[in-house]
């Protein structure tokens, strides 16, 4: 950053990034951690850290979207959080046991049960598979973006997603 005009341009760009991806970062944080309080802190930390390194990230991005970079920051901060707490995010997404009795049509009830089973299944997946599913289905990221966020090749990411869905499918079948 060389002068006030550069700083203003950088702030404008950052504001744009923030507005475009606040919901993405929050959704990722929420599904990664499993509660709103920590998801709020993680989202805040992610944007503060992003602001700190935005100038460099923008220069090195060569025009590529910065969403994977943002999600990678959240991913690293979440990993630090669990390292600090000396535990992994075990059954955070498994809400099946605490949902109240369903109401509505038979189809809705059935669908609701299936969704609960899916959430429980997702929480039991290995970390990288769970994260890839969150990025794909909660954030709508494509293979290239997920690959950049996870620091993998596109091919490896495609395989990772395929295996995640397959494993989930098998665990749901086993529960039936």
């Amino acid at each position, binding site marked *: 950053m060389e002068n006030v005009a550069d*700083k203003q341009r950088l702030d404008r760009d950052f504001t744009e990034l*923030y507005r475009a991806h606040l919901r993405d970062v929050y959704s990722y944080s929420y599904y990664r951690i499993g509660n709103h309080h920590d998801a*709020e802190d993680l989202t805040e930390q992610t944007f503060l850290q992003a602001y700190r390194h935005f100038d460099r990230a923008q220069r090195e991005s060569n025009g590529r979207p910065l969403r994977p970079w943002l999600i990678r920051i959240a991913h690293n901060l979440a990993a630090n959080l669990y390292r600090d707490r000396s535990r992994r995010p075990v059954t*955070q997404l498994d809400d099946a046991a605490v949902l109240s009795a369903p109401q509505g049509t038979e189809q809705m009830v059935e669908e609701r049960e299936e969704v609960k089973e899916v959430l429980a299944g997702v929480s039991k997946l290995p970390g990288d598979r769970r994260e890839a599913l969150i990025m794909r289905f909660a954030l709508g990221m494509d293979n290239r973006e997920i690959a950049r966020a996870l620091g993998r090749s596109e091919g490896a990411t495609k395989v990772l997603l395929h295996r995640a869905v397959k494993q989930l499918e098998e665990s749901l079948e086993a529960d039936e």
Partner: protein
Amino acid sequence: MSDAERVERLLRMALAPVDPPERLTDRLERGLSELTEAAAEELAEWELAAMSDPRNWVRPAAAVVVGGMAAGGLVLVRARQHQRRRQTGGLRALEKSVRDVAGDFEKRLRR
């Protein structure tokens, strides 16, 4: 519909995007604007000073200020997080997180 397509459809429902609460938006926007304003003021002051002192022309003051401010913000967030962590025990925290997800999920289904 194949089994994989069925699972993907359920995944889309289960992992629907979550809107951040308003209090977070307020908090974040306040924090970020304080950060950018402070950095801008420092940068403007430094530019004025640098004009009269050539030795300061290459000093990366802005980067230091912006980085330092952001790091300060992070420290505060972490301190708050640490305090909250002390207040909620492991089991209570886990139960609470499960309840939070369940409550949110319930709201989404009702929409």
